[in-house]
């Protein structure tokens, strides 16, 4: 279980990294915390010719509040968020998510940008950030573009990253004082990848709700206007109005044929709704 041979570069700044990325022909992989890429290299599931280690890029470690949103550099670790070393605009929602990602050893090294880039459907950030309405900024030598998280994750282990692009930052909008947050997941054991994730951001005052069903075999189901899951309207009584059958139909539409799997997903989502309402 040793990686196939690869070249290794550790650029000192983002421009250098982007230049290397642009210049590289063939397969190149970016490594940050290495919590997913490391095992994949060892298993030879990926055999890049070049690995660009961005862990030395100070620009990507910044975290700041700008224009009312939180901008987290791609290299911010789960532990940075868990420990409150970064600012927060989600009233603790991100901190709770971070604290329950895998094991502490993974959280110490794993990065938010790496997790998004890897686009594992069972990962916590792609579901929770989609529910929070976060966006991702991608940068290449040609410039930057910003996408909604749900647009960035296009499938299992598939993102919208183009060749030469790197995740630069995550932009998280502030959670309004009236917005309720619920996040639930079911894991076979502590620290394992979830087999079902439910994330909800429900604002009865604004009559809006974002609902995410994650850890399915493909990109999470993201419902940005989730009134249909609550009998057609979002109001203070949303907890009583949650419609499991609508969620079940969404999952069936997403290609989940197994009824027991759908039931577990719907039950986890229901738990997230109850948590939000609590």
């Amino acid at each position: 279980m040793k990686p196939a041979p690869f070249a290794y570069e550790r650029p000192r700044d983002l421009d250098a990294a982007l230049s290397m990325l642009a210049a590289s022909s063939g397969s190149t992989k970016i490594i940050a915390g290495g919590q997913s890429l490391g095992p994949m290299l060892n298993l030879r599931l990926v055999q890049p010719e070049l690995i660009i280690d961005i862990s030395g890029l100070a620009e990507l470690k910044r975290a700041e509040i700008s224009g009312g949103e939180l901008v987290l550099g791609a290299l911010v670790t789960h532990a940075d968020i868990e420990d409150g070393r970064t600012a927060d605009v989600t009233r603790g929602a991100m901190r709770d998510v971070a604290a329950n990602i895998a094991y502490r050893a993974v959280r110490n090294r794993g990065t938010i940008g790496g997790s998004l880039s890897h686009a594992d459907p069972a990962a916590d950030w792609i579901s929770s950030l989609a529910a929070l309405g976060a966006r991702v900024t991608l940068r290449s030598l040609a410039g930057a573009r910003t996408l909604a998280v749900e647009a960035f994750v296009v499938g299992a282990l598939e993102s919208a990253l183009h060749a030469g692009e790197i995740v630069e930052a995550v932009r998280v909008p502030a959670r309004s004082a009236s917005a309720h947050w619920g996040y639930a997941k079911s894991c076979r054991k502590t620290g394992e990848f979830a087999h079902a994730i439910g994330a909800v951001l429900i604002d009865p005052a604004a009559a809006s709700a974002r609902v995410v069903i994650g850890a399915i075999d493909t990109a999470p189901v993201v419902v940005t206007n989730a009134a249909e899951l609550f009998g057609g309207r979002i109001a203070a009584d949303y907890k009583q109005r949650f419609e499991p059958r609508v969620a079940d139909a969404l999952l069936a539409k997403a290609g989940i044929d197994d009824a027991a799997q759908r039931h577990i997903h719907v039950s986890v989502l229901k738990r997230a709704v109850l948590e939000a309402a609590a």
Partner: protein
Amino acid sequence: MKEGAELRNEREFPSGKSGQGVGARLPRKEDDRLMRGRGLYVGDVRLAGLQDVAFVRSPLAHARIRGIHVPERHRGSVFTAADLVGIKPIRAISGLPGFKISEQPVLATGKVRQVGELVAMCLAPTRAEAEDIAASVTLDLEELPAIYDMLKAREPGSALVHEHWGDNVFLETNYEVDISAALDAPIKVTREISTARQCMSPLEGRGVVATFDKRLDQLTLHSAAQMPHITRSGLAECLGMEEGQIRVISPDVGGGFGHKGILLPEEVCLSWLTMQRGHPVRWIEDRREHLVASSNCREHHYKITVYADSDGTLRGIDCEATVDSGAYSSYPFSACLEAAQVASILPGPYKMPAYRCRTFSVATNKCPILPYRGVARTGVCFALELMLDLVAAEAGLEPGEVRLRNLVRPEQMPFDNITKKHFDSGDYPEAMRRALAQIDIDSIRGRQRKGEADGRRIGVGVSIYCEQAAHGTSVYSGWGIPMVPGHEQASARLTPDGGLELRVGVHSHGQGMETTLAQVAHEILGVDVAKIRIILGDTAMTPYSTGTWGSRSMVMAGGAVATACRELGERARRIGAKLLQHDPASVVLQNGEVRGVNGSVSLKAIAHTWYRRPQDLPADVDPGGLEVTQGYKPVRDSGTFSYAAHAAVVAVDPDLGEVEILDYVIVEDGGVLVNPLVVDGQIYGGLAQGIGTALYEEMPFDASSQPLATTLADYLLPGPTEVPAARLDHMETPSPYTQFGVKGIGEGGAIAPPAAIANAVNDALRPLGVELMQSPITPHRIVAAVLAARAAERSAA
């Protein structure tokens, strides 16, 4: 000393209050090394000129090999079966009539019969480079239909793993005692029950470092092996060498559980390679190899009927058991040990007048099934204990009550059960009663009636088993495997400075033998435990032994150490008498010194005189000296029977399928415990593995017999957060047949948990009409069963 009635009196332990002898709760001596990271495992062995091996393994479960293509640049670094001239395949032949022989080539010839089967061996200065070479080798394989389902494999017309057999059955057996007498019983419950294929998953995998010493004309194989002498015999057979030309060194070993008792094709390959190349070679199993290609175990299927009277009294069991034995018969336990065990141990500690069990050991395109801690007992306990809960439900009784009604009673001991298993001692009903009391069954029932605020359902389950251990010649010759244990030997040597060296052929890979055997020796000789060294894991330095397996080491090696130490003590006593100028009959050995009426002389002084100042000894001294090797067998070799009652309380979420173990009680009787602390550790470790069997561990296969869990992200093992702090209670009923009354206890912790937990889950979900009869009990299986029950209820309404 002759074995016999006098041994029954050896509960009077001469070490008295020293706190180091039999029964002392002594911290493990070896932990000073192991817990500081100072152990030496096979992966730590460094030899000059060492090169690494990686294997090309079959990507298909069943295929004909049409060609193996090695790039020109790697010729000379890649070896295939064609290169291994004169190397014999591994053959583990069961002596049971009707057994069909499989030949496991150490590198595949003709066909591959499992994913991960070795096809070519690649050599390079480092493992990474060896893997690069392996990746460059291409195989031309003609895929054949894969046999992945043991029940389908039994059907006529199935594709064949070994064509010349004509079917896929290694062996079929039939055991019957008057089953017709049970058929009119008022309660008759029939079910199919199965246990998943698992992987043993010791912390350390297998590994081999092989080298050849020209001066000694000797191959030295460093291997993570729990039975080094057996490995040597197997190697000698495959390599066509004399046993004296082979030395197997098994250094510190990070868990064995049965996996490390098996002769590996890799061991044969690397032995051949080092002799070809003249430099040391190494292969260290990685976790993917471990999961996919090697350590499989546990896959059983039962079709079972239990007959009982309406008061829950057992009338008989009728069972058809199938074991997925995989592609080959592994050495030395064979493809049929599991099924042979199933037939003889299924009735367990219960009385019944009628019994029938047919077994099938079926070949499939999977790894050979290997004996894992508990061997067939875990599956058997799962099957029978789940059935007894159904009998209880039919009879309207508490599950515990059905056990109490049918367990062998203490006044019946020693007891021969329906399969002629000879139970040496014990009070099984008492263990069950204590477990029920400690789990507080009445309060759980009350809690169930009230229901849970969080919507989960509470369930309580019990199970009980017996663990036959240290069973010897008479039992194993009947099971027909190529290895039959006889007398166990130990050497004891007093060193010139009064220390004690003990050499034993068993090994220690987590059992704490370096401590417990020292305690036994201390018990006899009074030498300080700190001054006793245990030498094991090296065929050149230890007496022959079949090794550590079957929970035999404490009984067998412990008995041998006691026997050797007694003889050594007797010799020292006679020398001491000379030094004291006493009649030998008037002196005794006590607390490390020989005492007479006029004084005493220490073992240390006796040793010093014997080795360093023989001029002080009279001419007529016994010339035997202070080094002895003695053999030992218990009074009866039918085995010791330890046992335990387990009780679990779980909370089950019927919509998420999550199971939380709220409480766990184990009441165990392992006879006289040499070191209760070590026994506790064995039980906790076994419990963790049992929880793995119950709830987590499963190697799934697809229809082409591809193993699907190739990393520990897919093959789930319980971790610290999944293993509850169990409450342990010990009973100590001595075995009448062994030194000090000890019994083997190594496996029990892993036997009962799947049954107790499954019964608890079923107890929680029974009101919903749910019944789970398959391990592991996963969230998906629970929810699928709940949905099926709800659908059935709707359609009935």
